[in-house]
Structure formats: C-alpha cells, structure tokens
C-alpha cells in the first residue's frame, strides 16, 4: 500500500488512508450535508455580536443546539474531520491533478495532487476558486424547456426523439476533453449518423499547433523543459502566466532560478530574455525585456536565426526598424551560441505560423530538441475547429444542436451566434449557469460541477488521471457528458456493450479496467476493485515513461513557412485569456473577479492596456474609453496605461462583457474582446495588426488595488545581479543602510517550543497570485465587490506588491508577496485597547476576532498595512444563499462587520498539525504543516516552518545570506524573511540594470 511520496506533503499518512477509502460509488455516502455540518460551517461571530456586558447573551440563553446521531455512521468519517480525495480539474485550460479537502461531506478546499507529475502541489487561481463555483447560488438548478422546469425524463425523451429524427446534428464541446469523453463522442457520432462534432474554444494554440504540424509532420505539441535551459528566449509567450501547462512551467523555471548559498561563487541560474508586446507575468520576470510589436516577432526570429549562424547584419536592421538596442540583441545571440543545447526559444500561441516555424528552426539550430524540448503526442486539448465550418454547417440546416459547457453565443469568433441558433429546431444548452448560450437554447440543462463529476484526462502520454465527485450534485443537475452518454445509450441498439453500462460512471470505470463485464472469479473481481480503488486513491495512473523525442524537423517546410510576412498597418491588438476568469467561464466567481491582475492590479474589469506613449498619442488617460475596431468587429474598452507595453500595441483580455449567467458577473466590466477574435485573419484569431482605435469620450473608473508602482527609492524589495551574488552572497547588506537595532527591553525567549516563520524566495516567485486565492479559500475571506474595492477596502490577507524600477517605458519589475509579518515587536499589539491582538509564545501575532471591537488602530500602526477591516457586512452581502455557507472552512471563524482580520500563518493548520503530532506521540516533522499559500505556490517560493528546528528548511533559508526583512530597521522583528531576488542580466549587455536601491 505504501508508495513513494514527494517530501513534505501535508498529513501524508492520514491522507493515504483517506484516499484509500475513496468513494466506491456515487450513490453511497454522498448524502448532502446534514444539519451537523451546516452548523459547523457557520462559525460566525454570532455569540460575540450579541454578547454584551459580562459577556451576557441578552435575556435568552444562547440558542440551544442539537446533536444528530446517525443510525450508522461511516466509520472512516468523523464529524468535523477532513477527508481528502484525488481528482482532476477538468474545468480549466489544463487538466491538473486535484487534492480535495472535504469536511463532513462538503468540499472546502482544493490543492494540487502531489502525485501529479505536471502540477504537483501547485495550483492555479482557477483551481483554487473552483470550490466557490460549486456553491454558486446562481447555478442553473433544474432542467428547463421553453415553458419552464421539466423533468430529466422529459428532456431525455425529447432529445432522443429529436436526435432520431434529425438528419443533421451539431455537437459542440470544449477542447479539454478526456479520453473517455472522446471515446463516447466517437460512439455518439457512430450511432447518430447526421452528427458532427465541433470543438469550440477561444483560448487555444491552434495556430502554433498547425505550424508544428506542418514543420514536424506529426500532430502533437512541443514541451519546453525550462529546468534544463540556461538561456530562455520568449517571443510574446507568457509561459509563466497563460501559455501551456503554466504550473509546470513555473515549477521548472523556478528550478533553474533557485540558489543555495553554498558555492555561491559558481552559482548559475537561467537567463530569461523576453521579447514581448504586452507586459505579462513572464515579462515581469525577465532578465532582459524587449518591447516589440507582435508584427515584428517574425523579423526577430529570422534575424536571430541568421545571427546565430554568424550573420548579424539583420540585427542592426531590427534596431533601426523597431528601435531595439542591438547591443542587447548581439549579447543575446552570443548567449545562445554559447549555450547551444542549453537554450530554448518559445513563442506565444497567438503569433502567426511563420514565427513558430522560425522558432522551430532556431531551436533546432540551438540543439534544443532532446535537451530543452520534448514532444507530447497527446495534448490535453483537442484541436479547435474552424468557426466558419460550423457556420456553414448551420447555414446548410441543422435539426438539432447540442452545446456541452460551451458558450458560443457569448464568445463566437464569427457571425452573431444567437441568430445562427434561431435556425436550429432543437438546441440543447448544457451549462453550469444559464449563460448566454443556455438561455438561448430550447432546452436549458444544468451541468454538474467539476467536483460533482466523474471524468478522466490524459494530458501527456503516461499520465492518465481520474476525476471523481466529492459531493452528490447539489441541484437537479447532471454531468453534461452523462447526458450525452444516456442519449448515446438510447440511440444504440440493444445488446451493444454501452447498453450494459449502468451510467457514465460505469462506462468510465469499465474503460479504466475497474470492472470487466460478466465478472469472473472472486479473486479477479477483487483485483479489479483493488486496481480501481488504487486509481481513485492516487488520482490516476502516473507511469514513468521516457520522454518522447521531438519529431525530426522538416527544414524545407519550416523555412518556407517562416518566410511568410505579416502586414502591419495600424494598432496591433493581442487578446489573451484573463488571468482569473479565463475565457469568461469563471466570470461568476467572485474570488476570481476580485483577484488583482498580476500585472496591472486591476480588479473586476477588462481594459485596453497601452503604453504611456501610445496613450499620449491617442490623447487618452486611464479610464477613457476607446473603441477598437478590427475588420467588422469592434469593442469599447477603458484604457489602462501600462508601462512596459510596446508602443502601438493594445492588449486586452477575454472573459468580460458577459451578460447572463449570474449576479456576480453583472458587477464586472463590460467590453467583450471576443468580438475581435479572428476578424483580421482567422488563422491568428487572437492577434490583429491593423486595428483602428478611436477615442469615444466616455470613461469608466478602473479599480486597481495598487496605485503606486514606484518604490520611492526605499529598500523594500532588494535585488542584485548574479555577478554581485557570486562576489558576495550577502550583497543585500550593501543595498541598504541598516542601523544597529537596539531595544529598551529584554526580548522574549522563543528558543523553547516552536517559533514559526515564513521565508519567501523572491528569486523564484513569479507573481502568479495563486497564493492570494489559496489564502482566500482557506481563511473564509469575503469578497467585497467592485465598489468597495474602488474605495480601497479589498480584504485579501495576502497580496503581491509590484514595483517598477528603471526605465519608465520598460521598467524592471519587482514583485513581493506581502502578508502579515508576525512581528515579534508588533506595533499593532501594543495599541489594541482590548487585547484582541496579542503575541503567542510561538511567535505568532494572534488576532482574536471575537474580542475585536474594531478601533482600526492596529491597522493604522501596521507598517506593512496587511490588516483588513470588515467595513461592512461583507460576508452577509456575499452570502446570497445559505448554500454558500458550505464553502466555509469550519476551522476558521467567519468575521462579522466591524472586526479586524489578518493573516495568521494559517494557525488552524498549525494547531491541527501540532495536535496530530502530539496525539500520535511524536515530534512535529519539518514541512508537515504547510500554510495555504505555501501549498498552492507552484514555484515553491514560500516555505513555512519552525525556526527552532535547526534542520528545517526554514532555518536554512533564514541562514541564507540573501535573507532580509522588510522595514527591518524599524526593529519590529518580522517573522517573514525575504530572499533577495538575484537577476541574471547578461554582463556584456549595455542595459545591465541592477535592481534595488540604496537610501
């Protein structure tokens, strides 16, 4: 039963046991939460709010409660105790592995599955926020037809009848489909002769995939191996933000950046050159960043290609045309040549095929294949179909159309899809919400959520994961693929194997070999069952396979493709998925809407990001609306002035301008960038190079959670270059003046017991913000809405501070996760009149919500401004439905109006970990307790631990010479150490900017 485990996973033993007891079937043990759990969920400060003098509770005793004892309790589940399940995230752009924490039968927190080779424990913001969508009260709750609610039986009857009669059927799905789903669709197409399957997705790398297809001759995708690369060149590829398997990219990129003090004289890190049009997360982490319009990317590739071969004259031309400093380019070329076999070039999926062909040639020339580039023959996403094909099919006449969790009415990159829908006799919309498409269909069918569903995925060869439900459907919903399964079953002749399957779950299980029809001997059955349970426990099967080598490059095809020129005669527009709401599918998720954009810190809104110079030439300032026209599509968006943008480029996100599907999205910004998709060239749908831009005269106030991006010359984020680091690992001491720290008082002795601390390696933190949402999910942090954000009252306990430095047009970016520093001499503590914030003997700055009267003095006196105040009844406003209470972590008090709150280092996890170790009579192991932010961080930049354990990771990081504390000179003795970022600019480049300022 025991198996290998990555070191340092939270409650390894108990989880193994719990995973082993994963749900045998959907019907058992998945009862909706009963009243015990409801009460447990509601750790609201009710008592305190009514407790007046003497702690009285008015005239009545406090409400009496009941204990409900079940007839038979499941032995493996004790009330209030967490049970973990492995699953897969099928909702997002990549099927990452999930580890779901459930309490009393309700999922409350999502982590990455540590066994999953792609994402490990890391998680994205979307994954973290998925649990909120599960309990979204705006979900479609029952099947509806044109007249109103109907039963599933009636729906099935009507659909099957419709499909039987139909001569032409359109089935539209997302691209991210598991192998079993694909198999079922195959069966459906087989039994429904007139049916065609279309894959619709606005965020896809179709352009790049077809280019690869042409130059490599095989379908599949190239897998960059950043951890093996010494020099990385990104051409408009936001591989740390939105391009590819981001969690894997961040982890492997961080691997190449991590430094240990031992041997600092010969320390090596990778070097990242980013040539990009918009300011992205990747660009924020660049060692050298070149601003360039997307239309220039082809030139750059070709120039680099020639320069690597020794013909550097094109570089100078590039400098002339695009104003790029060619000394930097020359240094880059030198770097690439010196690092042959250790360098890697990647290009963004929105760029035209010519760039990808050029990149393939360049990588080939740099000996990347096999070294820094592998091949994945089974991409997680199916290729997307040409929208025109769909339009033609519908124009020709379609009798029935089935839309499974897609929203073409909202984001169709072509004709008005609502009009197309009207031509279809029977349209079936299956979705989580009554979104634009579902609302326009004749049948509106509620989909089950990811966490209520059975599914599987195969994102890489050798990695097959399972998605299992952790709660019975909260509503009368059905998994969309299950609907398709039932309809396929009904259309299939008696006696075929699919008829034998009880349901979709059964179908899936059989395909996984968990149950062979017509079971054989008892031992065989047991073995099958064992195997299936093993899959459920682990979350899939992860075979160690040798990497698939890159197919041989067809040079001729690549060279001819790479020579295709891109015209550019206007503003250039790039359209990217939103960092949080993605393509709009998560638009009704408050956590995601309120998550500050990692680059602009914008919340609740979409914007047209432009460079300061472009803004000047357009005569607009932040918030002014501009109309962007590409071909026959146009959108109106507020301007956001973003330093680092290439001049003449407008960057915007998908996912806004949703009109139906919930109440949260009504607050969000308008302006649906999907209207611009593919308007110039359907081959590069997310790129336009001839956009027209006009000022409209209207304006909309953009809400940003950070307004100042200048560090004001203060020593807040300290950085150095690799050269400085090699000379002196303790270079931070030269970066600022540190007075001798004297105190009137004898400090407390923290040498006994535990002393908790966090270290954050700024060298590997990319600023993805997964920690922010993880913290929100773990600690019951409310959203406050757009209006409250606008007055500066966002509640995030953890934020990513961002500072710009150097060239104001192309700044160097410094990012710093900022959370409560748990100061030993905490200024907040001494000013609280009621002892609501105090210090624990383990070095934690404690905040007792039920004692807090809300003077806000602590927040004023906090030098880091990490305390958050409940100015209004945020929880109440957020809780439109008691259902949402189920998302609460019962281990954390829900704060009421008038109460201060802040990061506690996840004290509930600390307590739980300590108690577990004590109950088991052993010492606490290092890394046994992880904070939520640490667990979510794909770069493993955050380390929590006990400083009194000299062997712990945290103690070693604290001993690092790169460690510094923010505002250390104030002698508040923080317990969050930051490890200075070591940038690795090319020493031979002119633009050798070192960050960090003195005085």
């Amino acid at each position, binding site marked *: 039963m025991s198996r290998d485990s990555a070191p340092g996973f939270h409650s390894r033993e108990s989880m193994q046991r719990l995973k082993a007891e994963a749900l045998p079937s959907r019907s058992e043990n998945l009862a909706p939460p009963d009243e015990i759990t409801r009460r447990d969920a509601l750790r609201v400060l009710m008592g305190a709010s009514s407790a007046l003098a003497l702690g009285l509770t008015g005239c009545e005793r406090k409400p009496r*409660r*009941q204990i409900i*004892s079940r*007839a038979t309790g499941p032995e493996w589940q004790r009330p209030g105790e967490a049970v973990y399940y492995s699953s897969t995230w099928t909702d997002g752009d990549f099927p990452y592995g999930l580890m779901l924490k459930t309490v009393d039968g309700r999922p409350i927190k999502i982590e990455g599955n540590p066994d999953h080779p792609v994402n490990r424990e890391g998680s994205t913001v979307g994954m973290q926020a998925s649990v909120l969508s599960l309990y979204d009260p705006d979900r479609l709750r029952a099947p509806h037809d044109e007249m109103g609610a109907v039963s599933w039986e009636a729906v099935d009857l009507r659909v099957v009848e419709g499909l039987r009669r139909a001569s032409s059927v359109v089935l539209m799905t997302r691209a991210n489909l598991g192998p079993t789903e694909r198999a079922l669709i195959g069966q459906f197409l087989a039994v429904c002769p007139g049916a065609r399957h279309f894959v619709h997705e606005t965020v896809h790398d179709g352009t790049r995939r077809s280019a690869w297809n042409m130059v490599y001759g095989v379908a599949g995708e190239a897998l960059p191996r950043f951890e093996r690369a010494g020099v990385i060149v990104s051409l408009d590829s936001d591989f740390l933000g939105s391009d590819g398997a981001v969690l894997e990219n961040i982890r492997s990129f961080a691997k190449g950046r991590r430094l240990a003090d031992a041997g600092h004289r010969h320390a090596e890190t990778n070097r990242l050159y980013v040539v990009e049009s918009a300011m992205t997360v990747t660009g924020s982490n660049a060692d050298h960043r070149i601003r360039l319009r997307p239309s220039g990317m082809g030139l750059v590739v070709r120039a680099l290609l020639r320069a690597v071969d020794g013909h550097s004259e094109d570089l100078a031309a590039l400098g002339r045309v695009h104003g790029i400093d060619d000394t930097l380019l020359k240094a880059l070329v030198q770097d690439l040549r010196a690092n042959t076999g250790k360098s890697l070039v990647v290009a963004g999926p929105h760029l035209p095929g010519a760039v990808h062909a050029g990149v393939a040639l360049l990588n080939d020339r740099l000996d990347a294949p096999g070294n820094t580039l592998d091949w994945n023959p089974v991409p997680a996403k199916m290729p997307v179909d040409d929208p025109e094909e769909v339009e033609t099919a519908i124009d020709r006449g379609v009798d029935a159309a089935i839309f499974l969790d897609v929203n073409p009415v909202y984001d169709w990159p072509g004709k008005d899809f609502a009009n197309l829908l009207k031509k279809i006799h029977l349209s079936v919309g299956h979705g989580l919400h009554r979104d634009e498409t579902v609302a326009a269909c004749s049948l509106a069918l509620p989909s089950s959520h990811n966490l209520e569903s059975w599914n599987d995925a195969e994102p890489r060869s050798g990695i097959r994961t399972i998605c299992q439900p952790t709660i019975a459907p909260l509503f009368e919903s059905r998994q969309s693929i299950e609907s398709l399964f039932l309809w396929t079953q009904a259309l299939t002749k008696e006696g075929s194997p699919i008829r034998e399957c009880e349901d979709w779950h059964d179908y899936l299980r059989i395909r996984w070999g968990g149950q062979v029809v017509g079971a054989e001997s008892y031992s065989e059955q047991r073995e099958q069952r064992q195997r299936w349970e093993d899959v459920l426990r682990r979350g899939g099967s992860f075979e160690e396979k040798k990497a698939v080598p890159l197919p041989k490059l067809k040079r001729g095809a690549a060279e001819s493709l790479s020579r295709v020129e891109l015209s550019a005669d206007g503003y250039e527009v790039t359209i990217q998925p939103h960092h949080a709401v993605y393509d709009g599918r998560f638009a009704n998720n408050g956590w995601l809407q309120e998550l500050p954009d990692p680059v602009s810190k914008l919340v609740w809104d979409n914007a047209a990001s432009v460079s300061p110079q472009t803004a000047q030439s357009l005569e607009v300032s932040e918030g002014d609306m501009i109309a962007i026209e590409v071909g026959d599509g146009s959108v109106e968006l507020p301007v956001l002035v973003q330093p680092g943008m290439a001049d003449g480029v407008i960057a915007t996100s998908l996912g806004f301008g949703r009109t139906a599907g919930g109440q949260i999205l009504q607050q969000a910004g308008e302006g649906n960038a999907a209207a611009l998709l593919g308007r110039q060239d359907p081959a590069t749908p997310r790129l336009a190079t001839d956009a027209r831009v006009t000022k409209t005269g209207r304006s909309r106030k953009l809400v940003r959670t950070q307004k100042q991006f200048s560090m004001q010359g203060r020593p807040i984020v300290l950085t150095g270059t690799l050269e400085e680091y090699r000379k002196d690992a303790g270079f931070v001491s030269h970066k600022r003046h540190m007075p001798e720290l004297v105190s009137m008082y004898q400090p407390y002795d923290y040498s006994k017991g535990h002393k908790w601390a966090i270290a954050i390696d700024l060298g590997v933190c990319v600023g993805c913000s997964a920690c922010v949402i993880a913290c929100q999910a773990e600690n019951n942090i409310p959203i406050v809405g757009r209006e409250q954000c606008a007055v500066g009252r966002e509640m995030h306990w953890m934020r990513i501070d961002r500072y710009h430095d150097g060239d104001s047009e192309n700044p160097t970016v410094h990012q710093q996760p900022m959370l409560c520093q748990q100061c030993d001499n905490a200024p907040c503590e001494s000013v609280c009149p009621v002892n609501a914030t105090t210090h624990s003997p383990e070095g934690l700055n*404690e905040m007792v919500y039920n*004692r807090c009267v809300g003077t806000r003095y602590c927040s004023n006196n906090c030098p880091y401004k990490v305390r958050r105040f409940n100015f209004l009844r945020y929880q109440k406003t957020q809780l439109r439905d008691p259902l949402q209470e189920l998302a609460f972590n019962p281990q954390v008090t829900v704060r009421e109006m008038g109460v201060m709150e802040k990061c506690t280092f996840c004290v509930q996890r600390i*307590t739980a970990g300590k108690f577990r170790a004590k109950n088991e009579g052993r010492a606490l192991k290092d890394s046994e307790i992880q904070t939520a932010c640490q667990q979510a961080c794909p770069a493993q930049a955050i380390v929590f631990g006990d400083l009194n354990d000299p062997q712990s990771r945290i103690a070693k990081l604290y001993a690092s010479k790169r460690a510094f504390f923010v505002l250390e000179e104030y002698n508040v003795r923080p317990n969050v150490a930051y490890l200075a970022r070591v940038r690795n600019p090319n020493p031979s480049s002119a633009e050798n900017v070192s960050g960090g300022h003195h005085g």
Partner: protein
Amino acid sequence: MFSKKFERRIYIAVAAVMFSGALGVSFGAYVLWPSRREAGYQPVQPIPFSHKLHAGILQIDCLYCHSGAEKGPHALVPPLSTCMNCHAEVQPKDSLGNLRPGIDTLLEHWENKEPIRWNKVHDVADFVYFDHSRHIAGEVTCQECHGPVERMEHVQRTYGLKMSWCLACHKQRLPEGDPAFSEGRTTRGPIHCTACHR
C-alpha cells in the same frame, strides 16, 4: 419650600435610588452571570438515557460511546449502531412485559434508520475551538469539565464553560521541571489566544 421634610424626602429618594441601583446591579450580575446561567442546563432528551446506569453502574468506559474524544476535537454522540451493539440483545421490559419506553424509541429509530436528535448539553460558542483529544491526552478527566456524569440520571451541565473558567485551569502553574517547560509552557494549559480562538 426647603423644609426638613423636603430634605428628608430627597435623602430618602437618593438613598433609595442608590440602594436599588446597587441591589439591581448586584442582583442582575448574579442572575445574569454567564457561567451561573449556563450551569445547570438539563434539557429533556428524546430518549431518557441514563448515564448513571451505563457509566456508573455498568461502568462502560466513556470512550466506548464517545469514541471521538480520544482522536479529535469532537467527542461524538455515538450512532445508533453503537447502542445496538448491546441493545440488540439487552432489551429490558417492564412488569407488564412491554419494552421500556427508551428502548422502545431506540429500536423504533433503529428499525427506520432514523437519526436521533439529542439536545446538546455542553456547548461553547462557535469561536471557541475546543479539542477533546488534547484534553484527554493531557489527563484531564471527563468529570473535570462535564461533572460527575456517572452519577447523573439525566445529564446536566455542571459548569458554565466560560472563558474565565477555562482559564482558571489553564493558568495553573506547573511544578518546576515539568516536561512542558521544555516547550516553553509553564502553565497547565496554553494561555495564549490562538490556543482556543482563531
């Protein structure tokens, strides 16, 4: 106008106000004092379960039924299946040969697989994160907080379970050389805030 009588009236009035005020405050404080109010709570339960019989006379270990107490925060009221471990066999009848009322109800619930709704006797505010397992491990007897349950026919709350009451025990100083000293703790229980609140 300001006669002696007037003066006397004022004195009496002032004295009366002060006296009744003092009386009111002290009486109010006495009556409303939370631990006093909370103590003695004894709700009627759906089954007249006798702890005196089970825990006292039959000497069934507390943890036999309240099995969660050792393992986690909640002590747990057992599921009916635990009752049925014995009561599948033990079904006392009265002189007329009818099942005793409590047993009757138990069997009825068991037949219908219907949960029983017990009235919670010992309850603390939601922002108190009490953990049974740590107290059991710390050799706090059940009776220290729950009173002599084994002598109670029907369970009632002996103590108010208010913070000052908790602290009274937590604050007890440990003798020098106690193992807890190596953890930096000098009192019987932790007295910092996040020990119970978070």
